[in-house]
């Protein structure tokens, strides 16, 4: 049989692949190289505020000055290590909180009959239709000392004096969990709705109570969904700037804030760039490792 298709674009798939490649090249690789270049330069009171890496010293001779001092500075100053660690810690806790809220939600949605299922899914995505900043400000109104939450709790009599939540890490966890919840719920929902229900009938038939069934069948079979959702929350949460800036306290020192300070307050673009490059390496390293692990697992299965 003659193969169908458009003979003119016989290598159509190659052309299609060019689009994302070009996109990544333009908007990811080139900016990355620019940032990498700045991170290797020296700060200066100038416009832009750093010295060029490549300079024509005399005709026909280019001088390349690579300044690794920024990196050395970051490694030596414990402030940076502390804020990297703080970022990872807050991102980890937030991811865990998101997972603990998101998994039951995804489970309920996946087990719901149509049309309730679609409705619930829309409700999960609905907050995206309003401004992100507005929603974070709304959390300030809820969490502040004389805010909604405290008034309600005081009124009901559960507490006798207002809880201090705003400007603590707890507010940051809540903010991140709230903001990134859909990124957790959607992959979990996909994994859970793919789960073959007869497997749960089989486990129940063999004597497993619903909880045992969950831990021996549902959970292991939805691990890929848990991985995917957690990465989608964890990775952006590490670099999160707005949420800790608005909801966190002064002692909540996440790397995004440090970067912002270096860039705007200190106007030290090279240090800020170096901070960004190190953060990228810190995220990409484990990510690639996880990716390979998962690929290996799929191969082995």
């Amino acid at each position, binding site marked *: 049989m003659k193969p169908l298709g458009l003979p003119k674009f016989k290598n159509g798939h190659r052309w299609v692949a060019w689009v994302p490649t070009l996109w990544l090249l333009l908007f990811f690789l080139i900016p990355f190289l620019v940032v990498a270049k700045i991170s290797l330069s020296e700060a200066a009171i100038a416009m832009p505020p750093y010295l060029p890496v490549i300079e024509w010293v005399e005709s026909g001779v280019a001088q390349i000055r690579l300044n690794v001092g920024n990196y050395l500075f970051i490694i030596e100053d414990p402030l940076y290590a502390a804020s990297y660690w703080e970022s990872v810690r807050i991102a980890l806790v937030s991811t865990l909180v998101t997972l603990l809220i998101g998994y039951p939600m995804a489970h309920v949605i996946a087990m719901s009959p149509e049309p309730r299922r679609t409705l619930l899914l829309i409700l999960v995505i609905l907050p995206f239709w309003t401004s992100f900043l507005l929603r974070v400000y709304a959390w300030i109104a809820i969490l502040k000392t004389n805010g909604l939450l405290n008034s309600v709790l005081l009124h009901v009599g559960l507490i006798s004096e207002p809880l201090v939540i705003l400007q603590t890490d707890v507010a940051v966890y809540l903010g991140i969990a709230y903001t990134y919840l859909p990124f957790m719920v959607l992959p979990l929902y996909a994994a859970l709705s793919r789960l073959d229900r007869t*497997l749960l*009938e089989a486990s129940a*038939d063999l*004597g*497993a109570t619903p909880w*045992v069934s969950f831990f021996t069948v549902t959970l292991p079979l939805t691990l890929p969904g848990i991985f995917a959702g957690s990465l989608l929350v964890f990775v952006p949460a590490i670099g999160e700037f707005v949420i800790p800036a608005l909801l966190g306290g002064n002692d909540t020192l996440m790397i995004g804030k440090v970067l912002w300070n270096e860039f705007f307050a200190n106007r030290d673009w090279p240090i800020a760039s170096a901070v960004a490059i190190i953060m990228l390496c810190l995220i990409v390293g484990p990510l690639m490792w996880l990716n390979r692990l998962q690929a290996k697992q799929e191969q082995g*299965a």
Partner: protein
Amino acid sequence: MTSTGLQDKRWLDPDATPFIEFRNVSKTYQGVPAVKDVNLSIYQNELFCLLGGSGSGKTTLLRMLAGFETPTSGSVWIDGVDVTDWPPYERPVNMMFQSYALFPHMTVYDNIAYGLKRDGMPKPEIRERVEELLGLVRLSGFANRKPEQLSGGQRQRVALARALAKRPKVLLLDEPLGALDKNLREDTQLELIKIQESLGMTFIVVTHDQEEAMTLATRIGVMDEGYLVQTDEPHTIYEYPSSKYVADFIGDINLFECVVTETESGDLSLYSAEIEAGLCPPTSFAAPLNQTLWYAIRPEKMRLSREPVDADNVLSGIVHEIAYLGDFSVYWVDLDSGFRIRVSRPNISRLDHFAESWDERVYITWGQDAGVVLTQ
């Protein structure tokens, strides 16, 4: 096939206690009835087949026994206990699923051991039991494989081993051999019977395959549109179907609509307008005059000949089509009334040059008790 001495046929003994009982069980899904007022008693060591087309309610009935569905009304009893509201994980039954439902993230060993672990059986005992089961289903050496590394037949045997592992009082099998090809299926049927006999368990098999039901069962329950329409031993179901549906569903049959008439001598007789002929009813037939009923005769119970033969029932027609099926041939004969009937004949000799052929006039004859009369 099964050893059915009279002493084993507990269902014939009015004093025997049933092991499994459905009492007036009905099940409705969102207003749509799936099972309608089923009463059924199954006895220990039976290999009972629930037979019916898709949507007949047979699987729903099985799932109510496993505990995956709760009856809308009525009760389910196992070994004298009302288990109607028991969750599946507390019932002394295990099920082999149609899709096998093997846990894809576990090895064959862990799949079979799953139920035993839930019972808290010590590890060495589990190992011993699993090895024994792997031997029983001839899969020793496959313990560390994952289900996806197995063929369809092997998966089916793992599913069987897993369902047998806890030595349940009752094993439920939902279309157990559906996915296997014909030869493998026949072998496995015999194997199932062997396992059922050697373990002394009660098996309940759901199938849509009447041949499978005939091969396996001690008794068959035929279901249609939610009703359990007939429960009997295989040969009774075949030879004495209780309704047109059962007669038609199990094997092939010719059905003639008739009315009851009377001969000059005062005996009852049947007349069928469809075949424009009178029929001799079976001995001890009794029915009011002018009642409409159906006369059913199986293709293999009739004889074909070129010459008219003296018999209780004689029809005549032209051979329309012959299908050679190897072990026997099927003749479609057009009667003079235009009604087409089906007659089958075993191919006893290799080349039957004298056999009736296309477009030949033939006579079809059968004895008085070869057919049955059905009222519904």
